[in-house]
Protein backbone atom coordinates (compact mmCIF):
# COMPACT_ATOMS: atom_id res chain seq x y z
CA UNK A 1 0.00 0.00 0.00
CA UNK A 2 1.36 3.40 -0.99
CA UNK A 3 1.27 6.12 1.60
CA UNK A 4 1.31 9.73 0.52
CA UNK A 5 1.85 12.59 2.91
CA UNK A 6 0.80 15.84 1.31
CA UNK A 7 1.70 19.34 2.58
CA UNK A 8 1.28 18.42 6.22
CA UNK A 9 1.53 21.06 8.93
CA UNK A 10 1.20 20.17 12.57
CA UNK A 11 1.13 22.70 15.38
CA UNK A 12 1.31 22.03 19.09
CA UNK A 13 0.18 25.11 21.00
CA UNK A 14 0.84 27.21 17.88
CA UNK A 15 4.38 25.94 17.68
CA UNK A 16 4.86 24.13 14.36
CA UNK A 17 6.25 20.63 14.91
CA UNK A 18 5.96 19.91 11.19
CA UNK A 19 5.90 22.51 8.46
CA UNK A 20 4.72 21.71 4.93
CA UNK A 21 5.98 18.14 4.82
CA UNK A 22 5.31 15.98 1.78
CA UNK A 23 6.50 12.42 1.30
CA UNK A 24 5.67 9.52 -1.02
CA UNK A 25 6.15 6.07 0.43
CA UNK A 26 6.02 3.28 -2.12
CA UNK A 27 4.32 -0.01 -1.47
CA UNK A 28 6.61 -2.57 0.14
CA UNK A 29 9.29 -0.06 0.90
CA UNK A 30 11.31 0.05 4.14
CA UNK A 31 11.75 3.69 5.04
CA UNK A 32 13.65 5.31 7.88
CA UNK A 33 12.73 8.70 9.33
CA UNK A 34 16.06 9.98 10.61
CA UNK A 35 16.73 13.15 12.52
CA UNK A 36 17.80 14.63 15.83
CA UNK A 37 15.30 14.84 18.66
CA UNK A 38 12.76 17.56 18.04
CA UNK A 39 13.02 17.20 14.27
CA UNK A 40 9.40 16.06 14.01
CA UNK A 41 10.06 12.48 12.92
CA UNK A 42 7.92 10.84 15.60
CA UNK A 43 5.16 13.40 15.00
CA UNK A 44 5.14 12.45 11.32
CA UNK A 45 4.88 8.75 12.22
CA UNK A 46 2.02 9.42 14.64
CA UNK A 47 0.22 11.49 12.00
CA UNK A 48 0.43 8.62 9.53
CA UNK A 49 -0.98 6.29 12.21
CA UNK A 50 -3.80 8.67 13.06
CA UNK A 51 -2.64 9.13 16.65
CA UNK A 52 -2.41 12.86 15.88
CA UNK A 53 -4.44 15.00 13.52
CA UNK A 54 -2.68 17.37 11.12
CA UNK A 55 -3.38 21.08 11.41
CA UNK A 56 -3.22 21.32 7.62
CA UNK A 57 -2.63 18.87 4.78
CA UNK A 58 -3.72 15.39 3.89
CA UNK A 59 -2.55 11.82 4.19
CA UNK A 60 -3.45 9.27 1.52
CA UNK A 61 -3.42 5.51 1.89
CA UNK A 62 -3.32 4.33 -1.71
CA UNK A 63 -5.71 6.63 -3.55
CA UNK A 64 -7.93 7.11 -0.58
CA UNK A 65 -7.81 10.19 1.61
CA UNK A 66 -7.22 8.80 5.11
CA UNK A 67 -6.95 12.18 6.86
CA UNK A 68 -10.35 11.86 8.45
CA UNK A 69 -10.13 8.24 9.39
CA UNK A 70 -9.70 7.44 13.06
CA UNK A 71 -6.72 5.52 14.26
CA UNK A 72 -8.92 2.43 14.62
CA UNK A 73 -10.09 2.73 11.01
CA UNK A 74 -6.62 3.19 9.56
CA UNK A 75 -5.56 -0.32 10.27
CA UNK A 76 -1.88 0.36 10.74
CA UNK A 77 0.49 -1.76 12.77
CA UNK A 78 2.24 0.46 15.28
CA UNK A 79 5.16 -0.66 17.42
CA UNK A 80 5.80 1.76 20.27
CA UNK A 81 9.19 2.78 21.54
CA UNK A 82 8.60 1.14 24.91
CA UNK A 83 6.42 -1.56 23.31
CA UNK A 84 3.31 -0.61 25.33
CA UNK A 85 2.45 -4.25 25.99
CA UNK A 86 -0.62 -4.89 28.15
CA UNK A 87 1.08 -6.08 31.28
CA UNK A 88 -1.91 -7.84 32.82
CA UNK A 89 -2.34 -9.98 29.68
CA UNK A 90 -0.31 -12.99 28.65
CA UNK A 91 1.78 -12.90 25.50
CA UNK A 92 -0.96 -14.82 23.66
CA UNK A 93 -3.70 -12.42 24.87
CA UNK A 94 -1.58 -9.45 23.88
CA UNK A 95 -1.17 -10.76 20.34
CA UNK A 96 -4.83 -11.78 20.06
CA UNK A 97 -6.09 -8.41 21.35
CA UNK A 98 -6.52 -6.76 17.94
CA UNK A 99 -8.65 -9.69 16.76
CA UNK A 100 -10.78 -10.01 19.87
CA UNK A 101 -11.83 -6.35 19.89
CA UNK A 102 -13.35 -6.63 16.41
CA UNK A 103 -17.12 -6.33 16.16
CA UNK A 104 -18.78 -9.69 16.63
CA UNK A 105 -19.53 -10.14 12.95
CA UNK A 106 -15.94 -9.64 11.81
CA UNK A 107 -14.29 -11.45 14.70
CA UNK A 108 -12.62 -14.73 13.75
CA UNK A 109 -13.71 -17.79 15.77
CA UNK A 110 -11.67 -18.68 18.87
CA UNK A 111 -9.84 -21.58 17.24
CA UNK A 112 -8.88 -19.40 14.30
CA UNK A 113 -7.55 -16.72 16.67
CA UNK A 114 -5.54 -19.31 18.55
CA UNK A 115 -4.05 -20.60 15.30
CA UNK A 116 -3.13 -17.10 14.13
CA UNK A 117 -1.48 -16.31 17.46
CA UNK A 118 0.56 -19.46 17.27
CA UNK A 119 1.61 -18.68 13.68
CA UNK A 120 2.67 -15.19 14.68
CA UNK A 121 4.63 -16.51 17.64
CA UNK A 122 6.41 -18.87 15.25
CA UNK A 123 7.16 -15.97 12.97
CA UNK A 124 8.75 -13.90 15.72
CA UNK A 125 10.45 -17.02 17.12
CA UNK A 126 8.77 -16.94 20.51
CA UNK A 127 6.85 -20.22 20.43
CA UNK A 128 6.32 -21.65 23.88
CA UNK A 129 6.11 -18.27 25.60
CA UNK A 130 2.38 -17.68 25.05
CA UNK A 131 1.50 -18.10 28.73
CA UNK A 132 4.14 -15.64 29.96
CA UNK A 133 3.41 -12.10 31.12
CA UNK A 134 5.33 -9.18 29.57
CA UNK A 135 7.04 -8.65 32.90
CA UNK A 136 8.66 -12.07 32.54
CA UNK A 137 10.26 -11.35 29.15
CA UNK A 138 13.56 -9.80 28.10
CA UNK A 139 13.64 -6.51 26.22
CA UNK A 140 14.24 -8.18 22.86
CA UNK A 141 11.41 -10.64 23.46
CA UNK A 142 9.00 -7.83 24.38
CA UNK A 143 9.98 -6.07 21.17
CA UNK A 144 9.04 -9.08 19.13
CA UNK A 145 5.77 -9.59 21.00
CA UNK A 146 4.91 -5.97 20.21
CA UNK A 147 5.68 -6.64 16.55
CA UNK A 148 3.61 -9.83 16.49
CA UNK A 149 0.72 -7.98 18.15
CA UNK A 150 0.88 -5.26 15.51
CA UNK A 151 1.04 -7.85 12.71
CA UNK A 152 -1.97 -9.75 14.03
CA UNK A 153 -4.42 -7.26 12.58
CA UNK A 154 -2.83 -7.75 9.13
CA UNK A 155 -1.99 -4.08 8.79
CA UNK A 156 -1.54 -2.35 5.48
CA UNK A 157 1.36 -0.36 6.85
CA UNK A 158 3.78 -1.12 9.65
CA UNK A 159 5.04 1.83 11.70
CA UNK A 160 7.82 1.52 14.27
CA UNK A 161 8.85 4.26 16.69
CA UNK A 162 12.51 3.94 17.68
CA UNK A 163 12.15 0.17 17.51
CA UNK A 164 15.59 -0.54 18.92
CA UNK A 165 15.95 2.46 21.20
CA UNK A 166 15.42 0.65 24.48
CA UNK A 167 17.67 -2.33 23.77
CA UNK A 168 21.31 -2.91 24.54
CA UNK A 169 23.85 -2.78 21.73
CA UNK A 170 24.19 -6.49 21.04
CA UNK A 171 20.46 -7.27 20.93
CA UNK A 172 19.94 -4.17 18.85
CA UNK A 173 22.32 -5.45 16.11
CA UNK A 174 20.65 -8.87 16.04
CA UNK A 175 17.14 -7.47 15.90
CA UNK A 176 18.09 -5.04 13.18
CA UNK A 177 19.15 -7.84 10.90
CA UNK A 178 16.11 -9.85 11.91
CA UNK A 179 13.76 -6.97 11.10
CA UNK A 180 15.28 -6.59 7.64
CA UNK A 181 14.74 -10.29 6.93
CA UNK A 182 11.26 -10.07 8.38
CA UNK A 183 10.43 -7.17 6.09
CA UNK A 184 11.82 -8.91 3.03
CA UNK A 185 9.74 -11.98 3.87
CA UNK A 186 6.43 -10.21 4.55
CA UNK A 187 6.81 -7.29 2.16
CA UNK A 188 4.89 -4.77 4.26
CA UNK A 189 5.23 -1.08 3.68
CA UNK A 190 7.30 -0.21 6.73
CA UNK A 191 8.26 3.14 8.21
CA UNK A 192 10.51 3.39 11.24
CA UNK A 193 11.79 6.31 13.23
CA UNK A 194 15.34 6.45 14.48
CA UNK A 195 17.93 8.94 15.62
CA UNK A 196 20.70 6.44 14.94
CA UNK A 197 22.09 7.06 11.44
CA UNK A 198 23.95 3.78 11.35
CA UNK A 199 20.64 2.00 11.89
CA UNK A 200 18.91 4.03 9.20
CA UNK A 201 21.66 3.65 6.61
CA UNK A 202 22.06 -0.09 7.18
CA UNK A 203 18.39 -1.03 7.30
CA UNK A 204 16.35 1.26 5.09
CA UNK A 205 15.67 1.27 1.36
CA UNK A 206 15.33 5.01 1.59
CA UNK A 207 16.23 7.42 4.35
CA UNK A 208 14.20 10.55 5.10
CA UNK A 209 16.45 13.05 6.87
CA UNK A 210 14.48 15.51 8.96
CA UNK A 211 15.38 18.67 10.82
CA UNK A 212 13.29 21.29 12.58
CA UNK A 213 9.97 20.07 11.30
CA UNK A 214 11.01 19.75 7.71
CA UNK A 215 12.34 17.07 5.39
CA UNK A 216 15.89 17.89 4.38
CA UNK A 217 16.53 15.04 1.97
CA UNK A 218 14.99 11.77 0.87
CA UNK A 219 17.19 9.17 -0.75
CA UNK A 220 19.05 5.90 -0.58
CA UNK A 221 21.85 5.45 1.92
CA UNK A 222 24.33 6.27 -0.83
CA UNK A 223 22.40 9.40 -1.76
CA UNK A 224 22.31 10.90 1.67
CA UNK A 225 25.84 9.92 2.56
CA UNK A 226 27.62 10.69 -0.72
CA UNK A 227 25.38 13.41 -2.11
CA UNK A 228 24.00 15.34 0.83
CA UNK A 229 21.97 18.26 -0.48
CA UNK A 230 22.20 20.58 2.50
CA UNK A 231 24.71 21.65 5.12
CA UNK A 232 22.49 19.99 7.73
CA UNK A 233 22.50 16.58 6.03
CA UNK A 234 26.25 16.79 5.40
CA UNK A 235 27.02 17.48 9.03
CA UNK A 236 24.34 15.22 10.48
CA UNK A 237 25.23 12.09 8.52
CA UNK A 238 28.76 10.78 8.95
CA UNK A 239 31.78 12.75 10.13
CA UNK A 240 32.51 15.97 8.36
CA UNK A 241 34.50 19.14 8.55
CA UNK A 242 33.18 22.54 7.51
CA UNK A 243 34.91 25.81 6.81
CA UNK A 244 33.68 29.29 5.97
CA UNK A 245 35.09 30.09 2.55
CA UNK A 246 34.86 32.66 -0.20
CA UNK A 247 35.00 32.14 -3.95
CA UNK A 248 36.84 34.50 -6.22
CA UNK A 249 38.87 34.22 -9.42
CA UNK A 250 37.80 30.63 -9.96
CA UNK A 251 39.32 29.53 -6.67
CA UNK A 252 37.85 28.55 -3.32
CA UNK A 253 39.57 30.57 -0.63
CA UNK A 254 39.89 30.18 3.09
CA UNK A 255 40.52 33.52 4.70
CA UNK A 256 41.42 34.96 1.30
CA UNK A 257 44.09 32.35 0.57
CA UNK A 258 43.33 29.87 -2.22
CA UNK A 259 43.21 26.29 -0.95
CA UNK A 260 43.82 24.42 -4.18
CA UNK A 261 40.27 23.70 -5.32
CA UNK A 262 38.10 25.43 -7.92
CA UNK A 263 34.32 25.86 -7.76
CA UNK A 264 32.36 23.38 -9.90
CA UNK A 265 30.13 24.54 -12.72
CA UNK A 266 26.95 24.63 -10.65
CA UNK A 267 28.62 26.13 -7.55
CA UNK A 268 28.70 29.83 -6.84
CA UNK A 269 31.43 31.61 -8.75
CA UNK A 270 31.86 34.47 -6.31
CA UNK A 271 30.80 35.37 -2.79
CA UNK A 272 30.93 33.44 0.44
CA UNK A 273 29.83 29.95 1.39
CA UNK A 274 30.61 26.93 3.50
CA UNK A 275 32.85 24.13 2.37
CA UNK A 276 32.09 20.59 3.60
CA UNK A 277 34.26 17.51 3.26
CA UNK A 278 34.67 14.19 5.04
CA UNK A 279 37.85 13.43 7.01
CA UNK A 280 38.80 10.59 4.69
CA UNK A 281 38.30 12.60 1.48
CA UNK A 282 41.56 14.58 1.66
CA UNK A 283 45.03 14.29 0.21
CA UNK A 284 48.22 15.57 1.75
CA UNK A 285 50.12 18.22 -0.21
CA UNK A 286 53.87 18.15 0.08
CA UNK A 287 54.88 20.79 -2.48
CA UNK A 288 54.97 24.10 -0.56
CA UNK A 289 54.23 26.04 -3.77
CA UNK A 290 50.87 24.35 -4.38
CA UNK A 291 47.95 26.15 -2.73
CA UNK A 292 46.46 24.07 0.08
CA UNK A 293 44.99 24.24 3.58
CA UNK A 294 47.66 24.35 6.21
CA UNK A 295 47.37 23.48 9.87
CA UNK A 296 49.22 22.49 12.98
CA UNK A 297 48.46 19.16 14.63
CA UNK A 298 46.69 19.87 17.93
CA UNK A 299 46.07 16.22 18.81
CA UNK A 300 45.99 12.98 16.93
CA UNK A 301 44.55 9.61 17.70
CA UNK A 302 44.69 6.16 16.28
CA UNK A 303 41.39 4.85 15.05
CA UNK A 304 41.50 1.22 13.85
CA UNK A 305 43.34 1.29 10.48
CA UNK A 306 43.81 5.05 10.25
CA UNK A 307 44.94 8.02 12.20
CA UNK A 308 42.76 11.06 12.83
CA UNK A 309 44.49 14.39 13.24
CA UNK A 310 42.85 17.41 14.76
CA UNK A 311 44.36 20.33 12.89
CA UNK A 312 44.39 23.92 14.05
CA UNK A 313 44.12 25.86 10.81
CA UNK A 314 43.55 29.25 12.43
CA UNK A 315 44.89 32.24 10.62
CA UNK A 316 44.43 35.88 11.49
CA UNK A 317 43.27 35.13 14.99
CA UNK A 318 39.97 33.35 14.17
CA UNK A 319 40.04 29.85 15.58
CA UNK A 320 39.28 26.98 13.18
CA UNK A 321 39.76 23.28 13.67
CA UNK A 322 39.20 20.39 11.25
CA UNK A 323 39.64 16.67 11.68
CA UNK A 324 41.17 14.73 8.80
CA UNK A 325 42.44 11.22 8.23
CA UNK A 326 46.14 10.96 7.59
CA UNK A 327 48.23 7.94 6.56
CA UNK A 328 49.60 5.93 9.47
CA UNK A 329 53.16 6.66 8.36
CA UNK A 330 52.71 10.43 8.18
CA UNK A 331 54.30 12.69 10.77
CA UNK A 332 51.61 13.49 13.37
CA UNK A 333 53.41 14.72 16.47
CA UNK A 334 51.73 17.69 18.14
CA UNK A 335 52.84 20.88 16.44
CA UNK A 336 53.69 19.28 13.11
CA UNK A 337 52.58 21.37 10.13
CA UNK A 338 50.36 19.46 7.70
CA UNK A 339 49.20 20.70 4.30
CA UNK A 340 46.22 19.09 2.58
CA UNK A 341 43.31 19.63 0.26
CA UNK A 342 39.89 18.00 0.00
CA UNK A 343 39.43 15.54 -2.85
CA UNK A 344 35.65 15.22 -2.56
CA UNK A 345 33.80 18.20 -1.20
CA UNK A 346 30.68 20.21 -1.43
CA UNK A 347 30.27 23.95 -1.41
CA UNK A 348 27.07 25.49 -0.07
CA UNK A 349 26.40 29.18 -0.73
CA UNK A 350 25.56 31.33 2.27
Amino acid sequence: MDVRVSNIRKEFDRYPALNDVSLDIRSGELIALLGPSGSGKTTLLRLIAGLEQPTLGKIFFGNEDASHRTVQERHVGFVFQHYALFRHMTVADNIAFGLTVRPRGERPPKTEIRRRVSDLLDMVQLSGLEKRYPNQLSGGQRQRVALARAMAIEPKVLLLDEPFGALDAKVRKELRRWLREFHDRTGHTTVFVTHDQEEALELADRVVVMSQGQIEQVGSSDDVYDRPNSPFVFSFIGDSASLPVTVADNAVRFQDEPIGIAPKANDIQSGSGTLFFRPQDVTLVTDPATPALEGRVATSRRLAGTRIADLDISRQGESHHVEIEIPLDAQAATGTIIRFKPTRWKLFAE
Partner: protein
Amino acid sequence: MTTSAAASVRWRVRQPSVIPGFGLTLGFSLAYLTLIILIPLAGLVWRSASLSGAEFLAILTDERTINALEVSFGTAFIAALVNVVFGVIVAWVIVRYEFPGRRIVDAVVDLPFALPTAVAGIALAALYAPNGWVGQVLNVFGIKAAFNPTGIVIALVFIGLPFVVRTVQPIMEEIDREVEEAAATLGANRFQTVYRVLLPGLSPAILTGFALAFARGVGEYGSVIFIAGNIPYVSEIAPLLIVIRLEEFNYGAATAIATIMLSMSFAMLLVINLIQAWSRRRYGHGA
Protein backbone atom coordinates in the same frame (compact mmCIF):
# COMPACT_ATOMS: atom_id res chain seq x y z
CA MET B 1 38.52 -18.42 59.56
CA THR B 2 36.27 -17.80 56.56
CA THR B 3 33.58 -20.16 57.77
CA SER B 4 33.36 -18.50 61.15
CA ALA B 5 33.17 -15.08 59.48
CA ALA B 6 30.36 -16.32 57.25
CA ALA B 7 28.61 -17.79 60.26
CA SER B 8 28.85 -14.55 62.19
CA VAL B 9 27.34 -12.68 59.22
CA ARG B 10 24.50 -15.13 59.08
CA TRP B 11 23.74 -14.74 62.76
CA ARG B 12 23.98 -10.99 62.88
CA VAL B 13 20.67 -9.31 63.59
CA ARG B 14 21.51 -6.22 61.54
CA GLN B 15 23.83 -5.41 58.67
CA PRO B 16 26.88 -3.41 59.69
CA SER B 17 26.55 0.35 59.25
CA VAL B 18 28.55 3.41 60.26
CA ILE B 19 25.39 5.31 61.16
CA PRO B 20 24.90 5.61 64.91
CA GLY B 21 21.78 5.39 66.97
CA PHE B 22 20.45 1.97 66.02
CA GLY B 23 20.22 0.66 69.56
CA LEU B 24 18.73 3.85 70.94
CA THR B 25 16.08 4.38 68.27
CA LEU B 26 15.08 0.75 67.86
CA GLY B 27 15.05 0.22 71.62
CA PHE B 28 12.88 3.25 72.19
CA SER B 29 10.56 2.35 69.30
CA LEU B 30 10.09 -1.19 70.53
CA ALA B 31 9.53 -0.12 74.12
CA TYR B 32 6.98 2.50 73.11
CA LEU B 33 5.25 0.15 70.69
CA THR B 34 5.04 -2.54 73.36
CA LEU B 35 3.70 -0.17 75.97
CA ILE B 36 1.11 1.60 73.86
CA ILE B 37 0.01 -1.04 71.39
CA LEU B 38 1.15 -4.54 72.19
CA ILE B 39 0.41 -4.81 75.92
CA PRO B 40 -3.11 -3.35 75.59
CA LEU B 41 -3.90 -5.61 72.62
CA ALA B 42 -2.42 -8.56 74.47
CA GLY B 43 -4.74 -7.67 77.33
CA LEU B 44 -7.69 -8.02 74.99
CA VAL B 45 -6.50 -11.39 73.73
CA TRP B 46 -5.80 -12.57 77.29
CA ARG B 47 -9.21 -11.43 78.42
CA SER B 48 -10.98 -13.18 75.55
CA ALA B 49 -8.92 -16.32 76.15
CA SER B 50 -10.15 -16.35 79.72
CA LEU B 51 -13.71 -16.72 78.47
CA SER B 52 -14.73 -20.34 78.28
CA GLY B 53 -15.63 -21.72 74.87
CA ALA B 54 -19.26 -22.00 75.86
CA GLU B 55 -19.42 -18.40 77.08
CA PHE B 56 -17.76 -17.19 73.91
CA LEU B 57 -20.16 -19.15 71.78
CA ALA B 58 -23.14 -17.93 73.74
CA ILE B 59 -22.17 -14.31 73.15
CA LEU B 60 -21.52 -14.82 69.49
CA THR B 61 -24.70 -16.72 68.84
CA ASP B 62 -26.71 -14.11 70.68
CA GLU B 63 -29.11 -12.80 68.09
CA ARG B 64 -28.32 -9.17 68.86
CA THR B 65 -24.59 -9.81 68.36
CA ILE B 66 -25.18 -11.61 65.09
CA ASN B 67 -27.43 -8.84 63.84
CA ALA B 68 -24.94 -6.16 64.83
CA LEU B 69 -22.11 -7.95 63.04
CA GLU B 70 -24.33 -8.47 60.01
CA VAL B 71 -25.26 -4.79 59.95
CA SER B 72 -21.63 -3.69 60.32
CA PHE B 73 -20.24 -6.03 57.68
CA GLY B 74 -23.21 -5.70 55.33
CA THR B 75 -23.34 -1.90 55.29
CA ALA B 76 -19.54 -1.65 55.09
CA PHE B 77 -19.58 -3.99 52.09
CA ILE B 78 -22.24 -2.01 50.25
CA ALA B 79 -20.56 1.31 51.08
CA ALA B 80 -17.23 -0.04 49.82
CA LEU B 81 -18.90 -1.10 46.57
CA VAL B 82 -20.40 2.37 46.13
CA ASN B 83 -17.00 3.86 46.84
CA VAL B 84 -15.30 1.63 44.28
CA VAL B 85 -17.63 2.90 41.56
CA PHE B 86 -17.53 6.58 42.49
CA GLY B 87 -13.99 6.53 43.82
CA VAL B 88 -12.69 5.28 40.47
CA ILE B 89 -14.74 7.90 38.62
CA VAL B 90 -13.55 10.70 40.93
CA ALA B 91 -9.93 9.57 40.59
CA TRP B 92 -10.28 9.39 36.80
CA VAL B 93 -11.76 12.88 36.60
CA ILE B 94 -8.98 14.28 38.81
CA VAL B 95 -6.17 12.51 36.97
CA ARG B 96 -7.38 12.83 33.40
CA TYR B 97 -9.45 15.96 32.96
CA GLU B 98 -8.40 19.56 32.99
CA PHE B 99 -10.90 21.85 34.65
CA PRO B 100 -10.73 24.92 36.85
CA GLY B 101 -10.46 24.03 40.52
CA ARG B 102 -8.98 20.59 39.92
CA ARG B 103 -6.57 21.08 42.81
CA ILE B 104 -9.41 21.97 45.13
CA VAL B 105 -11.41 18.91 44.14
CA ASP B 106 -8.30 16.83 44.74
CA ALA B 107 -7.90 18.35 48.21
CA VAL B 108 -11.59 17.92 49.06
CA VAL B 109 -11.24 14.15 48.65
CA ASP B 110 -9.15 14.12 51.84
CA LEU B 111 -11.92 15.81 53.85
CA PRO B 112 -13.09 12.56 55.48
CA PHE B 113 -9.51 11.97 56.69
CA ALA B 114 -9.36 15.41 58.25
CA LEU B 115 -12.90 15.99 59.51
CA PRO B 116 -13.54 14.49 62.96
CA THR B 117 -15.97 11.61 62.68
CA ALA B 118 -18.42 13.06 65.20
CA VAL B 119 -18.65 16.25 63.15
CA ALA B 120 -19.27 14.26 60.00
CA GLY B 121 -21.83 12.22 61.89
CA ILE B 122 -24.01 15.10 63.07
CA ALA B 123 -23.68 16.89 59.71
CA LEU B 124 -24.80 13.82 57.76
CA ALA B 125 -27.60 13.21 60.21
CA ALA B 126 -28.79 16.79 59.86
CA LEU B 127 -28.69 16.55 56.05
CA TYR B 128 -30.23 13.16 55.50
CA ALA B 129 -32.80 13.17 58.32
CA PRO B 130 -36.36 13.32 56.98
CA ASN B 131 -36.48 17.06 57.73
CA GLY B 132 -32.93 17.72 56.45
CA TRP B 133 -32.02 19.35 53.11
CA VAL B 134 -31.39 16.11 51.28
CA GLY B 135 -33.75 14.03 53.38
CA GLN B 136 -36.72 16.20 52.38
CA VAL B 137 -35.99 15.65 48.70
CA LEU B 138 -35.55 11.92 49.18
CA ASN B 139 -38.74 11.81 51.20
CA VAL B 140 -40.67 12.95 48.14
CA PHE B 141 -39.53 9.78 46.39
CA GLY B 142 -40.38 7.73 49.46
CA ILE B 143 -36.76 7.08 50.36
CA LYS B 144 -35.76 7.12 54.00
CA ALA B 145 -32.06 7.78 54.19
CA ALA B 146 -31.50 8.17 57.93
CA PHE B 147 -32.11 6.21 61.11
CA ASN B 148 -31.98 2.93 59.21
CA PRO B 149 -29.22 0.86 57.50
CA THR B 150 -29.29 3.20 54.48
CA GLY B 151 -28.10 5.97 56.80
CA ILE B 152 -25.20 3.77 57.93
CA VAL B 153 -24.23 3.17 54.31
CA ILE B 154 -24.26 6.92 53.68
CA ALA B 155 -21.94 7.57 56.62
CA LEU B 156 -19.59 4.77 55.54
CA VAL B 157 -19.52 6.05 51.96
CA PHE B 158 -18.35 9.38 53.37
CA ILE B 159 -15.67 7.72 55.51
CA GLY B 160 -14.40 5.28 52.88
CA LEU B 161 -14.15 7.43 49.76
CA PRO B 162 -10.55 8.67 50.20
CA PHE B 163 -9.30 5.12 50.73
CA VAL B 164 -10.38 4.12 47.24
CA VAL B 165 -9.40 7.37 45.53
CA ARG B 166 -5.97 7.58 47.13
CA THR B 167 -5.16 3.95 46.37
CA VAL B 168 -6.26 4.08 42.75
CA GLN B 169 -5.08 7.59 41.88
CA PRO B 170 -1.29 7.03 41.92
CA ILE B 171 -1.64 3.91 39.76
CA MET B 172 -3.85 5.83 37.34
CA GLU B 173 -1.25 8.57 37.12
CA GLU B 174 1.33 6.00 36.08
CA ILE B 175 -0.73 4.64 33.19
CA ASP B 176 1.39 4.79 30.09
CA ARG B 177 -0.42 6.71 27.34
CA GLU B 178 1.32 4.51 24.79
CA VAL B 179 -0.66 1.54 26.10
CA GLU B 180 -3.94 3.28 25.31
CA GLU B 181 -2.65 4.32 21.91
CA ALA B 182 -1.53 0.76 21.25
CA ALA B 183 -5.04 -0.49 21.98
CA ALA B 184 -6.44 2.14 19.60
CA THR B 185 -4.07 1.21 16.76
CA LEU B 186 -5.17 -2.40 17.21
CA GLY B 187 -8.73 -1.31 16.55
CA ALA B 188 -10.14 -1.10 20.08
CA ASN B 189 -12.74 1.61 20.60
CA ARG B 190 -12.55 3.79 23.69
CA PHE B 191 -14.89 1.62 25.72
CA GLN B 192 -12.91 -1.52 24.88
CA THR B 193 -9.67 0.24 25.78
CA VAL B 194 -11.01 1.31 29.16
CA TYR B 195 -12.78 -1.93 29.93
CA ARG B 196 -10.24 -4.43 28.64
CA VAL B 197 -6.92 -2.66 29.03
CA LEU B 198 -7.11 0.08 31.67
CA LEU B 199 -9.48 -1.39 34.27
CA PRO B 200 -7.76 -4.78 34.51
CA GLY B 201 -4.50 -2.93 35.05
CA LEU B 202 -6.12 -0.98 37.86
CA SER B 203 -7.90 -3.92 39.41
CA PRO B 204 -5.30 -4.76 42.10
CA ALA B 205 -5.44 -1.13 43.26
CA ILE B 206 -9.23 -1.12 43.12
CA LEU B 207 -9.37 -4.33 45.16
CA THR B 208 -6.96 -2.90 47.71
CA GLY B 209 -8.97 0.31 47.95
CA PHE B 210 -12.14 -1.73 48.38
CA ALA B 211 -10.57 -3.78 51.18
CA LEU B 212 -9.29 -0.65 52.96
CA ALA B 213 -12.66 1.10 52.74
CA PHE B 214 -14.43 -2.06 53.85
CA ALA B 215 -12.14 -2.62 56.83
CA ARG B 216 -12.48 0.98 57.89
CA GLY B 217 -16.26 0.84 57.51
CA VAL B 218 -16.61 -2.24 59.68
CA GLY B 219 -14.90 -0.53 62.60
CA GLU B 220 -16.32 2.96 62.11
CA TYR B 221 -18.22 4.42 65.04
CA GLY B 222 -18.35 8.21 65.32
CA SER B 223 -19.86 9.13 61.99
CA VAL B 224 -22.36 6.27 62.06
CA ILE B 225 -24.09 6.47 65.44
CA PHE B 226 -25.79 9.80 64.77
CA ILE B 227 -27.40 8.79 61.49
CA ALA B 228 -27.96 5.10 62.21
CA GLY B 229 -30.91 5.37 64.56
CA ASN B 230 -29.26 2.56 66.54
CA ILE B 231 -32.30 0.30 66.60
CA PRO B 232 -31.26 -3.06 68.07
CA TYR B 233 -31.44 -5.91 65.55
CA VAL B 234 -31.95 -3.41 62.70
CA SER B 235 -29.46 -0.57 62.59
CA GLU B 236 -27.19 -1.24 65.54
CA ILE B 237 -23.54 -1.60 64.49
CA ALA B 238 -21.07 -3.92 66.21
CA PRO B 239 -18.83 -1.16 67.64
CA LEU B 240 -21.90 0.40 69.24
CA LEU B 241 -22.85 -2.95 70.75
CA ILE B 242 -19.36 -3.12 72.27
CA VAL B 243 -19.93 0.30 73.84
CA ILE B 244 -23.34 -0.76 75.14
CA ARG B 245 -21.93 -3.94 76.67
CA LEU B 246 -19.16 -1.90 78.29
CA GLU B 247 -21.70 0.47 79.79
CA GLU B 248 -23.45 -2.57 81.20
CA PHE B 249 -20.06 -3.62 82.61
CA ASN B 250 -20.44 -6.79 80.58
CA TYR B 251 -16.72 -6.82 79.73
CA GLY B 252 -16.86 -10.44 78.58
CA ALA B 253 -19.36 -9.76 75.82
CA ALA B 254 -17.56 -6.59 74.74
CA THR B 255 -14.29 -8.51 74.55
CA ALA B 256 -15.78 -11.37 72.56
CA ILE B 257 -17.30 -9.06 69.92
CA ALA B 258 -14.09 -7.05 69.75
CA THR B 259 -12.06 -10.22 69.26
CA ILE B 260 -14.22 -11.30 66.34
CA MET B 261 -13.98 -7.87 64.71
CA LEU B 262 -10.26 -7.71 65.28
CA SER B 263 -9.65 -11.11 63.70
CA MET B 264 -11.73 -10.07 60.72
CA SER B 265 -9.76 -6.87 60.22
CA PHE B 266 -6.47 -8.76 60.47
CA ALA B 267 -7.80 -11.18 57.89
CA MET B 268 -8.55 -8.18 55.66
CA LEU B 269 -5.05 -6.86 56.22
CA LEU B 270 -3.67 -10.22 55.17
CA VAL B 271 -5.85 -10.24 52.06
CA ILE B 272 -4.62 -6.76 51.11
CA ASN B 273 -1.02 -7.86 51.48
CA LEU B 274 -1.66 -10.96 49.40
CA ILE B 275 -3.29 -8.93 46.61
CA GLN B 276 -0.31 -6.63 46.49
CA ALA B 277 2.27 -9.41 46.55
CA TRP B 278 0.42 -11.28 43.82
CA SER B 279 0.10 -8.18 41.67
CA ARG B 280 3.78 -7.34 42.08
CA ARG B 281 4.84 -10.85 41.17
CA ARG B 282 2.72 -11.07 38.08
CA TYR B 283 2.57 -7.58 36.65
CA GLY B 284 5.68 -6.08 38.16
CA HIS B 285 3.84 -3.34 40.03
CA GLY B 286 2.05 -3.04 43.34
CA ALA B 287 -1.32 -1.57 44.06
